[in-house]
């Protein structure tokens, strides 16, 4: 029994580490790779819960996490970045060091909030809940401190990874599969929006300007 929890905590912990990794990347391509890694670890964590708690419906959630968020969306975003020719560097509102410090503080805050939950049946889910909350808050942080539309989407999806982790940790919570599908449809919708409508002026104001300046330097 203990081993079951150890492994699920290990996987949740690895997800939290990738959350930190998301924050210190300098290039958008690297951000997308870190996000893909986080989604794949999430898929493993959910699959582990499905197997160890014998809840086969969770395998669907794991499969969605792996295929859609581990593969399809990162690839699609890689292509968007390449096709729109937007700036490849991450646009920062706050520097890496400060962002990481805030991330640490948020992780501590998540622990402090969840630890208050008394012992009992819910306490089994407690550690996982704390890790999930930390991942959610870090996603939130990323949406605030990174300006470009692509990195904001990644921040949101990372937040959503934390939510699915939390929902999986709550034993027997119904609708987890349905909700993960709903979420993924939502994300697909907005990746689609980036593709089709291109959110042009968003890129224009932030990125194209920077590109032009760089070209000017070369000439």
């Amino acid at each position, binding site marked *: 029994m203990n081993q079951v929890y150890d492994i699920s905590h290990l996987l949740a912990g690895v997800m939290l580490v990738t959350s930190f990794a998301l924050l210190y990347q300098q290039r958008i391509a690297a951000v997308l790779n870190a996000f893909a890694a986080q989604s794949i670890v999430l898929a493993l964590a959910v699959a582990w819960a499905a197997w160890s708690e014998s809840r086969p419906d969770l395998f669907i959630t794991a499969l969605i996490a792996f295929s859609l968020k581990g593969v399809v969306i990162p690839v699609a975003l890689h292509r968007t970045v390449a096709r729109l020719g937007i700036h490849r560097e991450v646009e920062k509102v706050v520097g890496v060091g400060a962002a990481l410090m805030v991330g640490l503080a948020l992780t501590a805050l998540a622990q402090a909030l969840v630890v208050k939950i008394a012992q009992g049946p819910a306490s089994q*889910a407690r550690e996982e809940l704390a890790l999930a909350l930390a991942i959610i808050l870090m996603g939130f942080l990323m949406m605030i401190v990174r300006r470009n*539309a692509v990195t904001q989407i990644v921040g949101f999806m990372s937040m959503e990874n934390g939510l699915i982790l939390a929902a999986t940790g709550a034993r027997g919570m*119904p609708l987890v599969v349905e909700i993960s599908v709903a979420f993924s449809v*939502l994300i697909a919708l907005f990746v689609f929006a980036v593709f089709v409508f291109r959110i042009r002026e968003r890129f224009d104001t932030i990125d194209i300007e920077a590109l032009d300046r760089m070209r000017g330097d070369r000439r």
Partner: protein
Amino acid sequence: MIHAYQIVVAAPYVAALVLLAIPGYRIGAIANVAASGVTFAAGLWLVFGERSVGDYAIVDEFNIVFITINTLVGFTTALFSASYIGHEIETGRLTPASLRFYHAMFQAMMGSMNLALVANNIGLMWVGLELATLITVVMVGLYRTPQAIEAAWKYFILASVGISLAFFGTILIYLAGQPTLGEGVPAMTWSLLQAAAGRMDPAILDLAFIFLLIGYGTKVGLAPLHAWLPDAHAEGPTPISAVLSGLLLNVALYALLRFKMIVAGQPAALDPGPIMIVMGLVSLIFAAFMLYQRRDIKRLFAYSSIEHMGLMVFAFGMGGPLANFAGLLHMAMHSLTKSGIFFGVGHIAQAKGSQRIADIKGLSVTHPRLAVAFALAVFAISGLPPFGVFASEFLILTTTFAREPWLALLPAFGLLVGFGALLMRLQDTIFGEPVGPAHRVDASSVPMVLHLLLVLAAGIYLPPALVAWFRRAAELLG
């Protein structure tokens, strides 16, 4: 046996599918009205039908109030939209294809809101509210101008943060209910959760309520989480602004109140009242001051919505049968008046070809009838007698005064500040030298007049049956 609540949810979704298949926008608009009419009829049937509590759906006095307003305003907005939206094709802002999409999405949005309102399952409620929000995000970006896409993007980012936090709160409520109710569906069923609240772990409930308050509060438009609201109102099509202000904010408030009822069932948990009072007052007073600097007429009334939602949250935070009654009444009055005002704004935008307040002057000269109707609507929303908003605001202030005399000063101050701003802006638009073009207005004035008459009637005479119904709903709220 089909229940009315099933029709209320299913009819809009079926209509959405049908509307996607209808190519002509004129037929689409008529079908949109017809479908909304069917939903409204089912909503009325619900009022007189039996109350029921099931595994997934609940029909009690409390949510029938919301469903009735939702289906009524949905119907009148569809009427308004049918006469209004053709103009958008003439001016080239929309294409027939995007209008087909618009009609289908309108129905899907109504269906999702009704789903959130009848759901007895907190997960289902969340799904309904989120679907409705996402559809409005797409609708706000419908014109595809840079401003519209910027507004839709901002709305999406803030709404999705709200979505996520509310979902985390929902998970926590499930965890709180799980030990007593067991794993699976029962621990997500609202009616069971409320009954078992006294045996839940107060620490989890505290944490859950904070997340739910921030999550759903973002959608209610409570300051400081309101930033999406003015942009979304200003850049989307006018019928959508009417539905956003009149309905979607209510549905978010409804979800929040359902969770307040759960948390209030556990005396050891935090008291939601004071937190809601503070957040409501901050929104009310902040929005009242923001009204003074608006240059865009839709933004002006978007801030007015924040102000009124703040007042409602304040009233529900006070709690008790009287304050809850006043809050529910105010919600009904605000929905009717504010959507009526947005219909009027749609007329004005057509007449002047602009929604900047500086471009709208001298309406009394160029469009006298529109000017009178719009002035009356603004009088109504700023809380002048004999309109219904006055009655509900008066009731909120007097009940507060009876219990906490000093506290009553704050909402009174906020309302007074807001009142001044609205009258000032009204003077700008109605009187003065006419500027700019003065086009003919095609949109039908029936929905706006109907809303005004309802609000006026409610201000003069509330039927005892209605009072009794709202009172029962208020008692459920505790």
